[in-house]
């Protein structure tokens, strides 16, 4: 599916990534690419598997199948699915933030940013031995690390509160601090999990500014999960839309915005429009069915639309990212078979992966088919 972009300007290639939790397929055969120096947004309705993708990329989950290739600026490539968790930030230079902020709340802002420079400082301190005896090389490295921390505190507009505990910050500032902390690891790819969640419009705007600044001045590529479409549409260069762990659209913000499947999935339209689209795509029965609640056999009978109400995770799991997807070929075939029944969508610019047609039938129909 790939091959049109040369490997040089790609920083991240996700190929045929699948993540299964028991019988649940959270991500099914997902492939996408992120270009160096761009902001790539990963969007999708609740439970689409976005955070699972992040957890696979950053090593918190080991994917069931697939390959995640990261190419660093110096030409070295890393297969992220094979690296241990902590080596992904250390060696492959991938940093991340968390959906529910994970700061070291009892440490000051400055200390938070110094912890992020652990590996660099560890080497400088001779794995503690030189540092213990106060060697000058460590002192110098320590001073440099404080300068870097100050730099990022200034960028995040937090330098006045550098000596306060991180837990004392307001929510928006905590978000910015978490980004600053991730940047202190010197990443080439920065993965942000819903950085704008819970921010007011003003904070959201300053976040956009910070992200654009990072993109323009550090050359760090950004991969971002976001629900706030104002953020996504304003700053991202490339958008990948997930639904039920499958990619349903991929392209620049404008093309994604106009992609009917994405609209149908949920993007930025009001409820009435969604309804219209759904009615167009499927039928009233399907919509009705969607609202009936979880499928007893496969867990959440969730739909991509907001109309379906909250996705109930009937199979307990902490991440809430589980989705029932077809079990094996028969289901996929079923979905494929249904495709002609659904109004076929004009294939957008994206390369059509084998997974795509399955997702192509978009929101209502496949789900209806699964029931």
């Amino acid at each position, binding site marked *: 599916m790939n091959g049109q972009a040369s490997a040089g300007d790609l920083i991240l290639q996700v190929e045929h990534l699948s993540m299964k939790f028991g019988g649940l397929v959270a991500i099914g055969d997902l492939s996408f690419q992120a270009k160096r120096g761009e902001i790539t947004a990963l969007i999708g309705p609740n439970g689409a598997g976005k955070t699972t993708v992040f957890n696979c990329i950053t090593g918190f989950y080991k994917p069931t199948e697939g390959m995640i290739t990261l190419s660093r600026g110096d030409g070295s490539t890393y297969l992220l699915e094979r690296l241990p968790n902590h080596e992904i930030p250390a060696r492959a230079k991938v940093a991340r933030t968390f959906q529910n902020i994970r700061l070291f*709340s*009892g*440490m000051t802002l400055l*200390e938070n940013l110094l912890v992020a420079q652990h590996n660099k400082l560890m080497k400088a301190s001779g794995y503690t031995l030189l540092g213990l005896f106060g060697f000058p090389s460590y002192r110098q490295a320590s001073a440099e690390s404080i300068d870097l921390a100050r730099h990022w505190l200034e960028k995040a507009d937090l330098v006045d509160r550098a*000596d306060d505990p991180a*837990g004392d910050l307001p929510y928006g500032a905590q978000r910015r601090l978490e980004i600053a902390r991730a940047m202190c690891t010197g990443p080439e790819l920065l993965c942000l999990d819903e950085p704008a969640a819970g921010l007011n419009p003003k904070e959201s705007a300053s976040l956009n500014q910070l992200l654009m600044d990072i993109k323009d001045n550090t050359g760090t590529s950004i991969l971002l999960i976001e629900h706030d479409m104002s953020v996504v549409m304003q700053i991202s260069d490339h958008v990948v839309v997930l639904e039920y762990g499958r990619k349903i659209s991929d392209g620049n913000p404008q093309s994604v915005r106009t992609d009917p499947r994405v609209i149908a999935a949920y993007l930025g339209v009001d409820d009435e429009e969604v309804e219209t689209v759904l009615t167009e795509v499927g039928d009233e029965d399907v919509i009705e069915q969607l609202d009936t609640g979880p499928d007893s056999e496969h867990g959440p009978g969730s739909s991509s639309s907001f109309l379906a109400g909250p996705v109930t995770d009937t199979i307990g799991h902490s991440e809430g990212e589980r989705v029932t997807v077809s079990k094996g070929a028969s289901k996929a075939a079923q979905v494929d078979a249904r495709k002609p029944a659904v109004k076929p969508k004009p294939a957008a610019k994206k390369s059509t992966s084998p997974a795509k047609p399955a997702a192509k039938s978009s929101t209502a129909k496949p789900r209806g088919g699964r029931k």
Partner: protein
Amino acid sequence: MAVTASPERDIVVPPMQRAFREALYAGAIALGLFVLFIGLRTDQNISNELILVQRWGLLALVVILTAVGRFLYVAYAQPFLASLKVADVATGLLPESMATRFFRIPYLFAAIIIAVALLALAGSLDGLLGPDLAGYARFLRALAIIYAVASVMFYFRSFIHDHFSALGVSALALYPVVVVLTLALYSGSVAGGFQGSLKWVDNFGIQILIYVMLAWGLNIVIGLAGLLDLGYVAFYAVGAYAYALLGTHFGLSFWILLPAAGCMAAFWGVMLGFPVLRLRGDYLAIVTLAFGEIIRLVLINWREVTNGSAGVSGIPKVSFFGLISFNVSDPNYIAKVLNIATSSAYYKIFLYYLILGLCLLTAFVTIRLRRLPVGRAWEALREDEIACRSLGINTTTTKLTAFATGAMFGGFAGSFFAARQGFVSPESFVFLESAIVLAIVVLGGMGSLPGIAVAALVMIGGTEALRELDFLKRIFGPDFTPELYRMLLFGMAMVIVMLWKPRGFVGSREPTAFLKKRKAVSGSFTKEGHG
């Protein structure tokens, strides 16, 4: 306390009536609680039969005291406190106004006069007052001295707070000198001063400092890395037996075996660390507790090596780097080298400075490590392990280094303990020791070195001080041994401190780096770790 000050006061019953009612309730509760504890007692009679002793008088006394106490508290103390608004409703802390009321210059003078007068009369107290009253007089003297010291500390509290470490270290360094000089003046001879100092230097000084060192070592594991280790005494045992066995069998010097014992304990720290890396919280606590028991049972049962429960005796004394020995028979015995009178106190004073040095080493290393990446990683691990991994910190090695470093200091303390006692047996390394060290760490405030040192002073010093309260035997009868109540003291101190300061004596955390100004981090932000 604030109840009476609330607007409801108009509709509640008048204080006297309420006090009377509450006193009755308190009496009833006391009766119910103590009827089996105090009212009845099983004993053996002259022909070894089990008999039931009834102590209704004592029970009545306890119940009446409870009721009267409750009455006085509700009727007088509560309105008094409420009228003064002395208690901070939110925290329950007594504000400074209360302390200034308690510590007053005239009281201080009175206390000093009483103390000095009773000290001057010390020799003739028994003759003047008779043995009973003399006991009380000595107790009064102790109280007066404590009060005087406390008020001096209160008046200079800001100075003490600012220079706590320097003052503490110099006080510790001067302690044996002061003790010897005071006792020499008191007894009128230098030899008497040395002889009398044994109790103060050994029972108080060394004993407390051993626990300070153990607690500072455990602080690395619990206070910094947030890993709840209930088997810390195992490393203490490893260190002690390492010195005891290698010292007795191979005649190696303490100065070689001290690092060796530390390394061995660190090795066992890593051995313990590996299996428990994936455990958290309660599970970690249980496994470490089991580890401590395993080490103790091995020491008991591996008789060929450890001599079982009989222990290892005849452990060689420490020498001053081989230059000066503390064995009377040696040619380089200290008294012969320095041409002074023979006394066993020299060795104790030497040991005191040795453990003080080891403590300072522990503190130095801990303070240094906190400012190094590894120490910050420990604290970060305590705060959030997942975030650590997302920043590229290898949590496995970070946890192992915490276990190993903590264990190493436990090993140092252990080998010192063996050298000081001259005898080790598995009985010294029971779970209770781990619990005491843990209690000191929690009481002092996890992560704070001065707080932990103060907690060790209070807990261990308090226990030792109980031995001094001989006059209590006159009240409760000759078979009353106050030191048996040390666990009660521990429990009460824990409850009181945890109510008063839930984060320990020093609840705040000192940041390891600052940009503009060093501000202590309030304890409400720091986490205890996941175990």
